[in-house]
């Protein structure tokens, strides 16, 4: 297969764009595309301070790399969850994230659950019994709370995460299967700032998982290949496989599913609810973060329970 730009040997085929590209052209094309959509979606400007949530996986490291190449002011945030059963998932992903940051002289914040809160995530999940055998719901809660906290404490304008198109399409698929109206209304690559919470953006929302893996490999970025041990057999992985089967038969299915959802929403397919689904927020007296819970926020309540 030939590169559509220069006629050289292609290293990646992107049937959804009817295009194959060679290494040099692909490494130029991907950040250019990202830049185009950052502007189009009004995600952020070069004057704003960005905090990138980095997990040590391919997507978030590639995102950080591209933001850096494009000249944005992007610092990283790594949250050490202490998931080290078996494959040393957390310690290895932290090592790779720190190696990446050091090699490029980038600024990295590290939050350590055990050091900062006296408990690792698997223990926290067990003790509070949120989620029977998987700590994922506690994990999401901790990550959101800590991202908002660091963004606020250090004055970041924007929080960027490495969700790619396959992540977004799988989430959309799941929300559609359950007709989860609240989530469908809110699912968007840009969520505006509100009540002291930083704006949230997903600059990789148009890129396939395969493109992100190719980018990371071609750039020689070392990332954690093994997944979090709790991700095994997750429904999101099943949805991704299903969507890939459709993609295989009909190239472009994934990107159309998501981008047509966004344009349908823009045209008013989803009416604003008559009753307010976005709850009023107030300030948690304990940590100072906006919350919709009564009195103290869910994060602080969870921490209180394990510290009793």
């Amino acid at each position, binding site marked *: 297969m030939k590169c559509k730009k220069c006629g050289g040997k292609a*290293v990646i085929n992107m049937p959804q764009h009817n295009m194959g590209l060679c290494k040099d052209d692909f490494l130029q094309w991907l950040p250019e595309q990202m830049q185009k959509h950052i502007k189009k979606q009004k995600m952020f400007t070069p004057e704003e301070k960005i905090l990138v949530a980095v997990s040590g996986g391919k997507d978030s490291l590639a995102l950080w790399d591209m933001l850096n190449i494009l000249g944005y002011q992007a610092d990283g945030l790594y949250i050490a969850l202490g998931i080290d059963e078996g494959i040393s998932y957390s310690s290895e992903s932290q090592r790779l994230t720190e190696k990446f940051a050091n090699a490029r002289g980038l600024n990295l914040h590290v939050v350590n659950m055990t050091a900062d809160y006296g408990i690792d995530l698997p223990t926290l999940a067990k003790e509070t019994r949120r989620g029977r055998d998987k700590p994922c719901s506690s994990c999401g809660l901790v990550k959101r709370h800590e991202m908002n906290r660091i963004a606020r404490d250090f004055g970041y304008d924007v929080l960027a995460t490495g969700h790619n198109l396959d992540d977004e399409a799988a989430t959309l698929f799941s929300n559609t299967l359950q007709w989860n109206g609240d989530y469908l209304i809110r699912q968007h690559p840009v969520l505006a700032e509100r009540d002291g919470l930083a704006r949230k953006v997903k600059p990789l929302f148009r890129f396939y998982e395969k493109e992100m893996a190719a980018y990371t490999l071609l750039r020689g970025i070392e990332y954690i290949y093994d997944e979090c041990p709790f*991700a095994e057999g997750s429904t999101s*992985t099943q949805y991704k496989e299903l969507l*890939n089967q459709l993609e295989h038969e009909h190239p472009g299915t994934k990107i159309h599913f998501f981008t047509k959802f966004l344009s349908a929403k823009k045209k008013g397919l989803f009416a604003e609810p008559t009753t307010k689904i976005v709850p009023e927020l107030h300030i948690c007296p304990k940590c100072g973060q906006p919350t919709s819970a009564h009195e103290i926020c869910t994060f602080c309540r969870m921490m209180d329970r394990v510290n009793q």
Partner: protein
Amino acid sequence: MNIFIDCTARNGKIASMKKTSTIILRDKKYDVKAGSTIRAALLKLEILPESVICIRDGELLTEDNMLKEGETIKLVSVISGG
């Protein structure tokens, strides 16, 4: 010593008779027939080309490339969960 030489010679012969290539995904190794496209070999193994990247001698390559006899293709799974 004799047996050793004999053995290698025979293995070499079997391999060339079958004309195979090797595909590796994580800790699994598959022997596949050489001479078809990588894409065809992947589909035979029920691996979707959409979910992997193919690497030969450290270089990424597209799935329309032909599998050559005796070569090894390493697959990198691109799906991450969680």
